[in-house]
Each structure stands twice: as C-alpha cells, then as structure tokens.
C-alpha cells in the first residue's frame, strides 16, 4: 500500500479528530486529499508531533484513550513537492481557533 492510499483509507475517520502530522511527505499528501481546520502539519520540528499531540490532549483534558499515534510502514513514492499552498502560520492560527472553538 502506498502512503497516499493509506492516508486516503483513514481520511474520513479523521474528520472529527484533532490531527497533528509529522513533516514532509505525510503533510503534503494529507493536504492533497483535502485540508481541514482540525489538521496541523508540524513542519520542520522533527520529532515533536507526538509531544504536541500530548500537550493538546492534556490541555483539553481528553482521556488517554483519545490519544492515538499512528505509525504505518508503507511504500513511499514521494509527492512532487513538500511546500504546499497553506502557509505555516495560516495553518497554525486556523488550527488553534479550531481547537478552542
């Protein structure tokens, strides 16, 4: 299974979830399927996506069962580019508004 196919397979189940992705291909490919305000793409800060998810979970007083880290081994055919139309700060402030609404 290709990464894009894996993301597409779970895309509908992410509609009402708070999603933090790692940087790079996953971020670009998830955006290519369709961006949502509850998606945050942690670009560049390698290794901190899971920590950010934990911070959000604790801040919103969600239960431990609400926090899921998806690690999947898939075949990789990278996207043509990693820079997307969505700017980092637009994503950041839109996501914060989504979390606080």
């Amino acid at each position, binding site marked *: 299974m290709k990464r894009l196919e894996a993301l597409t397979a779970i895309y509908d189940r992410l509609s009402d979830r708070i999603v*933090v992705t790692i940087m790079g291909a996953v971020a670009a490919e998830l955006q290519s399927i369709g961006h949502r305000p509850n998606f*945050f793409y*942690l*670009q*560049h*800060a*390698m*290794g*901190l*996506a*899971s*920590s*950010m*998810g*934990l*911070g*959000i*979970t*604790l*801040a*919103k007083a969600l239960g431990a069962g609400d926090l899921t880290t998806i690690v999947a081994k898939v075949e990789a055919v990278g996207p043509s580019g990693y820079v997307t139309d969505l700017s*980092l*700060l637009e994503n*950041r402030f839109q*996501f*914060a508004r989504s*979390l*606080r609404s």
Partner: protein
Amino acid sequence: MSPVSNASSRIVYDALKASGVRLMSALPETWLVHLIRMAEEDPEMTLVRLAKEEEGVGISAGAHLAGVKSARLIQNHGFLASVNGIVSCAQLYRIPLLMLISYRGEFGERDPWQTEGGGVTEDVLRALRIPSRPSIARTRSHRASPRLRRWRCLPTSRLPCCSAGT
C-alpha cells in the same frame, strides 16, 4: 547543599500559578526539585515528566494552541538540549514559550561539569533572540552561606517577530 529552598521555590511556584500556568513539564533537576514536587502535589496543575527536554517544547506548543498556559522547568543544559525545538517549533510558529531555567555553572556552582554549559547559556539565549530576565533570590539560609540563586524567565512571546498569541 542545594542552593534552592522550599520557601523561595514557593514564591516562584505561586507566581507561575497566579499567572495562569496550569501545565508544567520537567526532568529531574536538583535546583528544581521543590518546584517539581509542588507541581506534583497540586491537583490543579498537570505535571509532565519528560524523557527528553525537547519534548517539553512540543507539549507546551500543543497546550498553547489548545488555550492552556504552560511553563517548562528546565536546567540550562536542558535548554541547550532543546534548541532546535525552540527554533523550529515555538519560534517558527510564533508560539509563546515560558521557560524557567536553573542557571547552573554560575557563581557558587559546586559541580565542575556544570560550568561549561553555564558559560555559554547567555550567549545562546542572545543568539536565539530570546528575551530573558535574571531572577536573583536570597533566602535566610543563604545569608549564612551567600550563594545566589539565579533563574532565567524567558517568554518568547516578547520576540519582536512574534505575532500576538495570547
């Protein structure tokens, strides 16, 4: 003897609490031991014990986006260990980050392994354009043994390049 006291740590803790901080992250550190215990015993405070200092940046960033104020309790070597997280997460995304840093390797330091990092701490802060403020406190016990306790309080939200978060 540790240069920190329960009484002076209480002043710092109460100030953090009064400013609205409800989440703290920390690794074990002798100078922060009272603060960490106070956070642990406070039912209104969430304390995250870290395996690696840089994770505290991600946790604080997530908490901020969700609307909760947090603070990182770290030693200056923990600050040095988390530089990329500070730059590539907090600063890149204009996320305020409050760090309470124990300033090891300064005057009165007994551990010889602390001085190398102590000597570069302020230069690294300046290089990262992080505004900092030293806090020097003396307690009664320190008058007999004059030893300074120094903290650095670093709100990156004061960065001129930072848009107003909260």
